[in-house]
């Protein structure tokens, strides 16, 4: 492994396209093929075929050189969203049948009564109460009623359940009842997979733990089938290397581990973008505070890198916040908004312009697609402004109907507002920019990052339209559009490490610190990390095990993650260090601190990283295609429609920056540089844009 003719590949299955990024001795190359919704593995084989043809080698030969094949899939996510996961039963402590129904309360819009109360992840009809009770100290208050459990098993058999989730109160403090239930299920329902909450997600708060267990169990049959089919067909096609899966936490794991805990891969889609963004920001600008925006056709995903670390959250939802289902497990913190090229622009009865939330999707799509769409979309507005090439859209994949775009923008926006069509199109893009900025501000504020000091990475096929405008609005000095930006996630998957996160519930407070209990929990976490390394086939010393505390001020309910300086607390000084680190983090993220207050630690965690030895962490991509500079009529604020140069990325040379306004054609996207910013080619082949550093002139 690691020899020069060994390749690595990564595949990301999106809603429209399946992206393939190939890393060989020379750098990264990007390929795309349409996704096949009915048979996603076929989409993978198609894009592999595209690459083999482009590289002029037989597929089997190409695959034979692949040392590692990294895969991200939305298969599990879609199953949960569409309710197509296994018929799952939920076993809960007697007296608490509605853990999954009640969730954690709350309602997103106090005045919107059109949204019905959401159904529980497992119906009440398949929820069974287990007579038992353990208290917060781990004491058994009510013994497990095994006879009643046998009768419950009769019901489970009769109900034809395909998977079972078990979540009992305080199983994280004393797992004996969950383990006993697991043994009975093994005996009575062999072949029906189950998930025990304490084993999957040993964290406080019964809803989150129950939801993790229920989602995980429900995905086991499906994901197990999917992985076997994937493995078999890739092996048949000639792949001999290792197959790895992308996790929600921004790492990769062996496919076998993903089968055992399928929930770990559920949010794998957006989790790789920050990994790639971090690499490009570092390679092209040397910065480690990064905002990564991935603009697709229907959604705009924002993730962050703070001082080189990718922040995660434990409150990630599948589906909408509050009405979906919480995964309860650490996940890359991502903010998604329904803003993309397909978002529809409209004017309400009070005369206010809106963009979205409705989307024209890909069918009928924007008016300019000529597939029957009549609504004005962001893509139509961009075409009206001359930012898109009607004859060579998406690297020539389709042609656009410019007249249809003008008609749509005119009738649904310009005429209603009484302004001309160019002004209307500009207003649509401005508003879209504002929505993107808002998504970014929400997450940067939440994570304590100042956008003005960060680098913005513009990724995704629709990145180019607004990325520069977004950077200017945020005050980011540098925008990087990676050459493989249109497949940021797939590129990131090649740059990631094997990772796992373990956690332990050992609540304590700095004012009366339970040093022995905590040290025992930390020792156990370290051992779990070493075991992970051994299973991954490397010596435990080679693994990086980063310990952290999830802490808060007393009575707060949201914890902040604070890295530990030690692997065991030797005495009061170490505890004081932890408190100090917490106060600083609180100040950084929430703007205030209370140094006189003690600090509560709710749980402890270990983030284990094993660097893949075959990964050489290449980021460079070779420019391909035409290097001919052309001109196009396009809109420049303050000047109107004017002649603007169109510069292919391949035409740009290191050390020879060019100034805007101009359009830069990168693979699969066009970057609009409307102002007079300076553009250059970065170390990795990315387009690097330095925005105008002076703010607009002030009025007073």
């Amino acid at each position, binding site marked *: 492994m690691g020899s020069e003719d060994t390749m690595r590949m990564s595949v990301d299955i999106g809603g429209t396209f399946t992206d393939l990024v190939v890393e060989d001795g020379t750098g990264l190359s990007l390929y795309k093929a349409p996704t096949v919704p009915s048979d996603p593995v076929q989409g993978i084989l198609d894009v592999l075929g595209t690459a083999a043809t482009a590289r002029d080698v037989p597929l089997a030969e190409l695959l034979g050189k692949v040392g590692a094949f990294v895969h991200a899939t939305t298969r599990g996510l879609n199953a949960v969203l569409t309710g197509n996961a296994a018929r799952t039963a939920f076993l809960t402590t007697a007296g608490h049948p509605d853990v999954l129904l009640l969730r954690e309360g709350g309602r997103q819009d106090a005045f919107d009564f059109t949204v019905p109360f959401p159904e529980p992840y497992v119906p009440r009809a398949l929820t069974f109460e287990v007579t038992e009770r353990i208290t917060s100290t781990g004491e058994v208050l009510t013994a497990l009623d095994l006879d009643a459990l046998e009768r419950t098993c009769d019901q489970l058999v009769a109900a034809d359940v395909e998977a079972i989730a078990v979540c009992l109160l305080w199983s994280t403090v004393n797992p004996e009842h969950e383990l006993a239930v697991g043994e009975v299920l093994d005996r009575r329902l062999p072949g029906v997979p189950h998930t025990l909450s304490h084993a999957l997600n040993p964290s406080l708060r*019964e809803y989150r733990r129950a939801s993790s267990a229920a989602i995980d169990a429900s995905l086991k049959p499906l994901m197990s089938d999917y992985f076997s089919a994937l493995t078999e067909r890739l092996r048949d096609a000639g792949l001999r290397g290792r197959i790895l899966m992308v996790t929600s936490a921004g790492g990769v794991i062996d496919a076998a581990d993903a089968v055992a805990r399928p929930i770990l891969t559920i949010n794998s889609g957006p989790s790789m973008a920050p990994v790639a963004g971090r690499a490009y920001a570092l390679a092209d600008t040397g910065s480690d505070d990064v905002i990564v925006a991935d603009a697709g056709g229907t959604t705009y995903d924002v993730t962050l890198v703070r001082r080189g670390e990718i922040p995660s959250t434990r409150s990630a939802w599948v589906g909408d916040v509050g009405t979906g289902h919480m995964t309860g497990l650490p996940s890359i913190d991502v903010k998604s908004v329904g803003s993309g090229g397909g978002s529809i622009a409209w004017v309400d009865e009070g005369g206010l312009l809106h963009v979205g939330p409705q989307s024209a999707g890909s069918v009928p799509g924007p008016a300019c697609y000529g597939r029957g769409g009549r609504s004005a979309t962001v893509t139509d507005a961009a075409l009206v402004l001359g930012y898109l090439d009607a004859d060579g859209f998406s690297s020539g994949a389709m042609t656009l109907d410019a007249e249809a775009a003008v008609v749509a923008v005119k009738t649904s926006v310009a005429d209603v507002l009484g302004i001309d069509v160019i002004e209307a199109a500009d207003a649509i893009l401005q508003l879209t920019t504002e929505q993107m900025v*808002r998504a970014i501000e929400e997450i940067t504020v939440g994570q304590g990052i100042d956008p003005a000091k960060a680098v913005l990475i513009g990724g995704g096929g629709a990145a180019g339209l607004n990325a520069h405008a977004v950077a200017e609005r945020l005050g980011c000095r540098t925008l990087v559009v990676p050459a493989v930006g249109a497949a940021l996630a797939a590129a990131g998957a090649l740059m990631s490490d094997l990772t796992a996160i373990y956690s332990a519930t050992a609540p304590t407070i700095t004012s009366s610190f339970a040093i022995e209990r905590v040290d025992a929990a930390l020792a156990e976490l370290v051992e779990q990390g070493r075991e992970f390394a051994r299973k991954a086939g490397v010596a435990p010393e080679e693994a990086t095990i980063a310990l952290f505390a999830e802490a808060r001020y007393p009575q707060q309910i949201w914890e902040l993650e604070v890295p530990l300086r030690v692997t065991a607390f030797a005495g009061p000084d170490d505890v004081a260090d932890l408190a100090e680190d917490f106060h600083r983090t609180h100040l950084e993220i929430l703007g205030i601190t209370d140094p006189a207050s003690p600090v509560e630690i709710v749980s402890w965690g270990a983030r284990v990283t094993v660097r893949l030895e075959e990964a050489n962490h290449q980021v460079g991509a070779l420019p391909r295609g035409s290097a001919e500079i052309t001109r196009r009529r396009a809109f420049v604020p303050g000047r109107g429609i004017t002649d603007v140069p169109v510069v292919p990325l391949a035409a740009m040379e290191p050390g020879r920056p060019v100034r805007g306004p101009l359009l830069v054609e990168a693979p699969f996207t066009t970057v609009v540089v409307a102002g007079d910013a300076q553009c250059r080619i970065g170390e990795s082949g990315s387009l690097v844009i330095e925005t105008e550093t002076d703010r607009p002139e*002030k009025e007073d």
Partner: protein
Amino acid sequence: MSEQPRSSAAESAQLAVLSHRFEAIVTRMQNTLARSGRSGVLNTARDFSCCILTADGDVLMTGQSPPIHVMGGPDLQARSMLEFYPEVHAGEAFLHNSPYHGNTHAADHSILIPVVDADGKHRFTVLAKAHQADCGNSIPTTYMASARDVYEEGALIFPVVKVQDQYRDCEDILRMCEMRIRVPEQWRGDYLAILGSARIGERALLQLADEVGWDALDVFSGKWLDYSEIRMASAIRKLPAGRAVTTTCHDPFPGVPEGIPIQVALEVDPVAGTIDVDLRDNIDCVPAGLNLSEATSRTAALIGIFNSIDHTVPHNQGSFRRVQVHLRENCVVGIARHPASTSTATTNLANRLGNAVQRAMAEIGPGIGMAEVGSGMSPSEAVVSGIDRREGSTPFVNQIFTGTNGGAGSPHSDGWLTMSDLGSGGTLLLDSVEIDELKQPILIHRRGIAVDTEGAGELRGAPGIDVEYGPVGGTLEAIYANDGSINAMAGAREGLPGAPSIQAKRTTDGTVEPVDICGPVRILDGERLLARTSGGGGYGRPTRRDPAAVVHDVREGWISRDRAAAVYGVVLDDALQIDVAATERRRTSLDNEELVKA
């Protein structure tokens, strides 16, 4: 309709873009407050709000928060600030919790910060408000229904008191609070969070003005309020004309042995595009903590109206211009004057009032209005106190949120299960059993929906929730203020009422006995406090409910098979399949019974 004047291209784009900017600022203020708050009532119940007002005190932009906080009060507060401090300066901050000067009730501490430009001109006011875990009342609760007046209530009142000057704390005020508020370090933490949130709003507005100029922001403010008024007028024009009078009655409480009857007279004028609500024909203030402040009387009425129309109409002074709420001084649902106590002004009577308004809207015509949202501060949301003996011996006092009242049926959906009450709009979070058991020495034995307690209807109300909890190794004291155990929550448009709430105790020998409607109740080791929250009222006649929805409710155990037949007229066989013929017969006979009754 297009009443709006044709505007310049720049203004059209600007209105949309700046409305996003203002919304984002409020969101940012709220996120800061939510995440840095210390008390359970702030961070779990999310009982806080933030808003931006114009310099002369018009509510300009509000965010997602409990509706009772932000609609009809912040304007009064901002104007009272200008009354006491006609000249405001950068760096000042004012603490305001006076229900006699525009605040909701004494437990809601507001910080007002004037946003002042470089020339010293007052441009905007930002307001952040949060319910406190304690506000210095004479007993450990912030909802003191039994208080005969503000003196017995005992809360510290701050009628616009300067707490920061030149961005520096006025420490003497803070020291006073720390001497009179229980768990002072928790209050101090929440105070910092509120102040921090308001300062973040101030900074963001200054930055925005730096970018686009104050004049552009002034133009925006005017246009945004006008836009909102146009949207409101347009929403009202879609309603039928009509007048409705509804009545309701708060349960008998200490100080009000007969309960409190309430009457609402409401008139919709679609031609003028206005709604008129008259609350003047109600009794005078009562010697109890139940009186509404001016802010909560207006807001409760506005909630009832905004719950009944297109939810996308912005909530600000522009849309409020289209609603006239008539109030009377010294009226129990009007303008309480010092020293009448308004300790529970955000919950009990406010919920009754808002419910009566939305039910009046329902009477105006089909497809509008709502039934009554479950109400009452159940023992499931009690302030619990005692001594924690698990590690040492430390006193504890905390409000728990273990079970919510059911939401009301509406023309669009069944009631929201975790609605809590009308004033909160369902925004509050529910406690985790494990977190509650960790925080205080209690054990929650049971929590789940109470079968057959929903207000039946074409769109049904949500059921109540049963909660049963008790102390671990000691005695527990619980204070609450439970309305709805006598007068249940009414349905609308022939929908049925939800089941009444229950407060009771399970003694050590297992017998269940009733307990006081407000507490304090002492629960001994081995005993359990039983709470059943109110079911929400149903909307529309139950026999019109989609039979498939009834089957779903039976399969999922929300209602019994018997109730499906008796109330909804849907007859199911043993396999829970619909017996179509029997269902048709049953529904016809139920409808005939209704006719006879009518």
